[in-house]
């Protein structure tokens, strides 16, 4: 166990998520390895997004949502209600399906979170430049930092969101279908960017695009609905699972998409 959690950035044990009486997710166990890309796939409504949201406690925002089980991150259990969620969310960043920069200037998009976490104006600027450079956006926007982020294209906005998450230097970044709202070209740019992030952060990505999962994932987990609630039916090395899934549902799902 100790050995495992050294390798894993996040270890999930017996996780269940309930919305009122409805159990969205039951008995999920998963180790998310450090500096790899873990992809979560499966049909809609099988709890992938709920799972993702429980990793940075965004589930707190949903009324009537209860999370049971353990999520071990840096030897601490995240589901503990006393855990400091603010610093947790700084360490585990998130990028959403729809690009959602704050509708203010590009600079403010960095300043708001960075100032909150105690950085000086100077550090804000340095980190902004560094993060924008990493996502390849610096050249494109360096002359209009004071302009509204809403004027950027969809792909640029999504890269801005990724840069904004990177600027906080998180350990893990969660991606919730980051490419599904983008056109194919922008989608390819963002996908390449995610692959390049692997060296510095752990990536967890929910995607409906199996081709994308096949291209980028190191680890793959297939979610499925069993007995009315979602769970993981197959999990492990992405290449192996795509080759020969052992679970029949996973087989159908992956092959159906293949054919």
């Amino acid at each position, binding site marked *: 166990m100790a050995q495992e959690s050294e390798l894993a950035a996040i270890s999930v044990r017996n996780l269940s998520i309930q919305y009122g009486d409805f159990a969205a997710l039951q008995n999920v166990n998963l180790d998310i390895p450090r500096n790899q890309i873990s992809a979560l796939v499966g049909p809609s409504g099988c709890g992938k997004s709920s799972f993702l949201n429980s990793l940075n406690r965004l589930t707190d925002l949903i009324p009537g949502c209860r999370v049971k089980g353990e999520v071990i991150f840096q030897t601490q259990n995240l589901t503990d209600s006393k855990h400091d969620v603010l610093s947790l969310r700084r360490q585990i960043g998130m990028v959403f399906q729809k690009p959602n*920069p704050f509708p203010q200037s590009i600079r403010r998009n960095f300043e*708001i979170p960075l100032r909150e976490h105690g950085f000086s104006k100077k550090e804000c600027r340095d980190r902004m430049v560094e993060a924008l450079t990493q996502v390849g956006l610096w050249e494109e926007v360096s002359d209009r930092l004071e302009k509204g982020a809403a004027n950027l294209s969809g792909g640029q906005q999504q890269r801005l969101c990724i840069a904004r998450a990177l600027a906080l230097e998180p350990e893990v970044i969660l991606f919730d279908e980051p490419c599904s709202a983008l056109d194919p070209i922008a989608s390819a740019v963002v996908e390449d960017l995610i692959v390049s992030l692997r060296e510095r952060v752990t990536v967890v990505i929910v995607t409906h695009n199996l081709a994308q999962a096949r291209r980028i994932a190191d680890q793959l987990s297939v979610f499925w609905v069993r007995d009315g609630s979602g769970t993981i039916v197959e999990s492990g090395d992405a290449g192996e699972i795509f080759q020969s899934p052992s679970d029949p549902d996973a087989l159908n799902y992956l092959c159906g998409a293949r054919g």
Partner: protein
Amino acid sequence: MAAVLSVGALLWIVLDLVKMGTSQIDWEFLTSGVEESGRAGGIGPVIKSTLLILMCCLLVAIPFGVGCAFWITEMVSPGSRLTAWLTRSVDLLASIPSIVFGLFGMAFFCRILGLGFSILSGGLTLACMILPILIRTTLAAVQSLPPDLRLSATAMGLRKSTILSRVLLPRAFPGILIGFTIGVARALSETAALIFTSGYATRSPASLLDSGRSISVHIFDMAMNVPNGATRASASALVLLLVILMINYLANYFSDQWLKKVN
């Protein structure tokens, strides 16, 4: 035809006021003191009292209104009993006739708190009256914001207070401004709630604890209690109407500008 009728009525009212009032209004009228119960002199002190009453009212009503709306959106889960209770009492508050606010203000602010007939009592009474407007408009403005704004801010580990002040408030500002305008217009036009709380005095108020008549009370008094006061009253009425129009226009203008700047 019905449309013509209603628009016609509006024009009729405005034109009447303009016809009777314009000749009376000049700088002198706006600044000099009230003489002979208003038949001579101007409305300087009346304007001063009105502004002071308005200031008291807004200073209290805005923090409470905006705070209450944010409590509903941020601090309690939607659909909870507390929210239901609060929205219901705000609805009821909004339906209470202004004269009843006057009765309450007279009993509570004037007598029990011992503020007497004063600008402060009047302002506080008006604050109670426009509170539901501010709460509702702020609520509508915040609730119409895209939910992922709040989501992404939370995902970055921002505190609620930061999310409120740096992310939500700037976006909701135009909506809040509209509520502010409606509130100001209501407060300026209110008469019934002020007669028994801030009184009739025509002299220039020296402090917030002095009595002072607002412009709408002045119009009322001139029209009802002062023989031959009608022309002077229409001048005051015209001033009031113009101010309200101007506030409406400015609020629209500023919220447009704000939206442009933000996007």
